[in-house]
């Protein structure tokens, strides 16, 4: 199947700063893809190049098979972008903005779909309000609505939940999940790694303009599986000699033991029982995306 987004050998320089170096990336249709990285890693630059807002120095990008520069009309018809900045046109109301935005994409009489996105994004009360009168969270919803007026098969959200309250974040993610289930390809950047972990099936991590990891979410986290650990609070507060080689840390009166797989749990517990040591508290620590992220950002020194 045609990839939703195909990025080939993209390089981008701003003066002396190499913002992106040889980026190769294919995102398949139907994926829920996370583009992660610290500030300044090049996420927004990459998104801007895909959206045609920024021109690359070399390389090519195709959206649903259409080149974003030579065939920009088709590429843009297939793409909806929610920009990171809270931008709005102060001259118009929410509904006017959405009708105008549909018109830009050549769609007449889009009222039905516009009503639907207004409702699904909880904007009904504000549909007749001027953009200036809206709170930050409401403006964010309008941005999402604007990106969806033309029902694009590919949707990019650049930090859609930055500075957004919990309720909107949940509404928003539920909506985006639904869009993904309906077959839309979704690409997002976020600093909330637990969001990405909960929703995305594949991840690319960018650092200093390069992709340093690109894998399925579970593979990426799975690679950290050796980092599982077990924390125990014991009575009496001592670790049997057999278990001491496993100790990696003491945190707040708890022993932290490294475990390679969960079958070890049984033997650890039986050792404790035979040493007549009681377990007062037990926590199992599993690596999450944040550990992967921190690990990659620290270790990768190229």
């Amino acid at each position, binding site marked *: 199947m045609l990839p939703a987004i195909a990025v080939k050998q993209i390089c981008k320089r701003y003066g002396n700063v190499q913002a992106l170096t040889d980026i190769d990336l294919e995102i398949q249709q139907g994926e829920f893809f996370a583009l992660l990285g610290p500030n300044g890693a090049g996420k927004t630059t990459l998104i801007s190049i895909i959206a*045609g807002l920024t021109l690359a120095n070399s390389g090519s990008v195709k959206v649903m098979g259409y080149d974003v520069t030579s065939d920009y009309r088709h590429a843009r018809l297939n793409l909806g*972008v929610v920009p990171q900045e809270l*931008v709005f*046109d102060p001259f118009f109301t929410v509904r006017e903005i959405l009708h105008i935005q549909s018109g*830009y*994409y050549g*769609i007449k009489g889009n009222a039905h779909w516009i009503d639907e996105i207004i409702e699904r994004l909880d904007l009904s009360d504000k549909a007749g309000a001027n953009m200036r009168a809206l709170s930050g969270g409401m403006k964010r919803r309008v941005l999402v609505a604007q990106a969806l007026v033309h029902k694009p098969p590919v949707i990019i959200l650049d930090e859609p939940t930055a500075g957004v309250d919990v309720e909107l974040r949940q509404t928003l993610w539920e909506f985006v999940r639904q869009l993904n289930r309906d077959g839309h390809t979704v690409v997002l950047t976020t600093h909330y790694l637990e969001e990405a972990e909960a929703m995305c099936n594949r991840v690319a991590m960018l650092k200093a303009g390069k992709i340093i990891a690109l894998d399925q979410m579970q593979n990426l986290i799975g690679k950290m599986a050796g980092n599982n650990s077990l924390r125990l609070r014991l009575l009496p507060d001592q670790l049997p000699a057999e278990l001491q080689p496993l100790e990696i840390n003491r945190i707040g009166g708890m022993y932290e033991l490294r475990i390679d797989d969960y079958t070890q749990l049984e033997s650890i517990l039986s050792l404790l029982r035979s040493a007549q040591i009681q377990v007062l508290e037990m926590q199992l620590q599993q690596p999450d995306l944040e550990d992967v992220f921190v690990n990659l950002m620290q270790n990768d020194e190229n």
Partner: protein
Amino acid sequence: MTGFFTLLYKELLRFWKVSFQTIVAPMVSPLLYLLIFYHVLEAHVEVYPGVAYPTFLIPGLVMMAAIQNAFANSSSSVIQSKISGNLVFILLSPLTYHEIFIAYILAAIARGLLVGLGVYLVALIFFEMPLQSPFWVLLFVVLGSAILGALGLIAGIWADKFDQLAAFQNFIILPLTFLSGVFYTIHSLPAGWQILSHLNPFFYMIDGFRYGFFGVSDISPYISLSIVAICLVAISYLTIWMLRTGYKLRH
């Protein structure tokens, strides 16, 4: 075409929604010029045979109002969208560069014509004006507004800040307008200034426009038309090139 008409509609609505500020207010200063110059100069000058100074002045002021507002419309629209960031919605859309260009220019022409018409109608209350050929009048005001609309686009795209736009307006547009013969016929100027005036494309817009009212002008309206048309084509090419290469718009 829907995309193009939507952008045009949006650009028209943008100034229409604040029409007091964009159409009525800009009529004030040309009418004040008319009042002042009329009182100061009425007795002194007969510009063309049978054409008294205020009658001569009115087309100049109408044209000035039209082209200044055409420039103001496209330049302020672009720089406001650029600075507030909402230009991104146009840049993300599948609108072609030509569609963007023509929509902005037509909106600029519309505002120019409305303000120009307003000044003309108010002046008609107080002065009698001949109107030899509405065709030439309309042709020159449309072409002049189109050129200034395109210059406004260029200025809006080029300027990063409002003060840069103000500089463009004050150091380029305003002198070219005031020195183009809005207030005088260039035959009244010393020879050196006359030559300089002939290098000013704005001179031909105003001279041709005036021909439509009086049937008399400093130079042939056909020459003026050719020069104005060439300027429009050249400036349009430059503007479309800027849009196509993404100059200052797509980094």
